[in-house]
């Protein structure tokens, strides 16, 4: 099987790649945003604690 045949998926390339592409993109984005919000909250809370300890 050549690479072009693999991409073509026997005429179903559009459907297969649309389904896989959207799923992979959304799952990666979900994971990154979960991690980012965890880091953001930790950072904000730490800054709050520093401010409190100065006062």
């Amino acid at each position, binding site marked *: 099987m050549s690479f072009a045949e693999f991409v073509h998926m026997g005429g179903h390339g559009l459907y297969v790649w649309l389904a*896989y592409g959207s799923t992979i993109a959304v799952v990666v984005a979900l994971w990154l945003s979960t991690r980012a919000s965890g880091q953001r909250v930790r950072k904000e809370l730490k800054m709050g604690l520093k401010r409190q300890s100065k006062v």
Partner: protein
Amino acid sequence: MTIKELWHRLGSPRWFYQMMGPWGTGLGVAAALLLITGTLWGLIIAPPDYQQGNSFRIIYVHVPTALVCQSAYIMMGVAGFLFLVWRMKLADMVVKVTVPFGMVMTALGLFTGSVWGAPTWGTWWEWDARTTSMLVLLFLYFGLYALRQAIPRAESAGRACALLALVGVINIPIIKYSVDWWLTLHQPATFTLTEAPSMPAEMWLPLLVNVIGVYCLMGAVVISSLRTEILRRECNTSWVREELMGEPA
């Protein structure tokens, strides 16, 4: 440890935060490995279907996402029940943090189903019992998200969301049996617990890998968001202060 002690510990945000960090990481790694394996396997190695050709490969992203969003909802319904009956703080947090995950997975299940329907059923959308009940599930997730935003008092918002989560569980058996109760275009279940799969192993093994992978992903995402939510809600306690000071910046 007796069951009663375990119960009290599970309800304690502090215990959960401190014990579950490694679990979140471990499940995240397992999810990544399984999902990469299952997806490549399904795309490259699994043979095309004799009737549907290569469009059948969409099963490897459609079934896991469409399954896990229902399990997430059941988990949320159980958590809602625990919060309504025992006022378990952690259960309210579970109801809150499961919503984005479930919403995203329901949307993906619907979207990949629609993309699969185009070459297979000849239409992108059909008001069929299965697709319609899945759309109701998506609206339930939207509703839960909006409800929490709309009620300013956290305590009342928690109770309202727990109740909606619990009542909405009725939709899950409707989704499951929709393909049996009504005449639908949707094909019946690929996997059942009681019968051997009707497809050959080379086709269902990658599906099984992706299904297990997506459940690990649910575990990782829910644990990670729960730990964040615990920090946010308990930020005035001394243990959170110590925890944050101890962690590297």
